[in-house]
């Protein structure tokens, strides 16, 4: 998706201001932001959606909306989309603020306080057994990223499309974000770190042409040169 989140290289956002933004939450907003963080993680632990479905839910909105929301407001908007799409909460329930029918989550799929340490410690590994599938590319191989512009979820940033680079590392056989964003938890491909010269990405505007940028991409995003 050529979405509002894909901002690598975009101009106009101003300075970073690290001193004023050093904490995980905005000053004065800690209370609701940390609660929003926890609600999102707890609801996600129910296993109703994949991490890529949650990213797509946050990003699949108009640029004007995305860029008018703060970080955790985007999380809340994404969560609301997921809850409705998955049929867990109806628009009427959102409007009234109360459950209109019985609980939607079967017992055991609602994260308890006792399960929090183990759940956070376990995380959600995305590597899968590759079976007979061998990586087609090896470190040092020259590659070109494909000019992929699907309407759906993809993790190839716009700034790195159709660009020549090289394989820095083979990272593993990982669940494919493009299909995982549709709820498919099994489809996987070899994941590579690909390096680019800054001069390749930014042309004459490169700050320092010999500097490098890497991205992590799956085999279907790449052609060998």
């Amino acid at each position: 998706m050529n979405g509002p989140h894909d901002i690598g290289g975009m101009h106009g956002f101003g300075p970073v201001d690290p001193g004023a933004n050093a904490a995980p939450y905005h000053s004065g907003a800690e209370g609701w932001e940390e609660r929003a963080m926890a609600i999102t993680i707890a609801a996600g632990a129910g296993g109703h959606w994949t991490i890529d479905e949650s990213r797509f839910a946050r990003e699949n909105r108009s640029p004007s909306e995305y860029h008018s929301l703060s970080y955790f407001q985007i999380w809340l908007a994404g969560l609301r989309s997921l809850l409705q799409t998955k049929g867990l909460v109806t628009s009427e329930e959102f409007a009234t603020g109360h459950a209109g029918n019985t609980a939607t989550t079967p017992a055991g799929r609602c994260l308890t306080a006792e399960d929090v340490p183990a759940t956070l410690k376990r995380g959600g590994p995305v590597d899968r057994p590759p079976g007979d599938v061998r990586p087609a590319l090896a470190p040092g191989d020259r590659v070109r990223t494909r000019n992929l512009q699907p309407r759906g979820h993809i993790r190839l940033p716009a700034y790195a499309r159709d660009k020549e680079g090289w394989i820095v590392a083979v990272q593993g056989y990982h669940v494919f974000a493009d299909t995982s964003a549709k709820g498919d938890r099994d489809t996987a491909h070899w994941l590579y770190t690909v390096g680019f010269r800054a001069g390749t990405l930014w042309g004459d505007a490169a700050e320092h042409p010999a500097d490098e940028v890497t991205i992590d991409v799956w085999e279907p995003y790449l052609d060998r040169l």
Partner: protein
Amino acid sequence: MPHDHHDHDHDHGSELDDMTARVMALETLLTEKGIVQPAALDAIIETYETQVGPRRGAEVVARAWTDPDFRDWLEKDATAAIASMDYTGRQGEHMMAVFNTPERHNMVVCTLCSCYPWAVLGLPPVWYKSTPYRARAVREPRAVLAEFGVTLPEGQSVRVWDSTAEMRYLVVPMRPEGTEAMTREQLIDLVTRDSMIGTGLPLSPGASA
């Protein structure tokens, strides 16, 4: 973005109150629906406030500085090496450690969202998730570093790692000069969070709190 500036014309306080009310209402609804439990939310917040934070990453770095076998392991298989210290978990499932050298400075960003190695650094700072950092780190890393007060020596190149999949990156900064006599415990205090993202450098001996 409005949250990054204070020039929007509606009252800041009422916006926060509104958000507080909306999040409380969501929590109430999702609790009624059996989707979340308030005690679990408290436990999640508590975990990232008191347990999972950049002290973990600093311990990994200080060990890499003082234990050559561990350093090699961290370079070959960071996920396993870090797991041996029990620092596994959410947003740290697949780790890669990248080592600064006199020839190369490493820096980490997630241009598409906010991917960050929670298991070793805790929750990301606001600036890491902000649009200025996400947009500019890949295009003008040296200008961004200057805003953090970092100027790299002549001849040191920059490699920016854009975390576009589930790999999470930990920068291992160079051990500061003058620290030869320091213990691992003392070294931990020199390793700042930003030095493990690549937007800062470790503290000099005597500069730590």
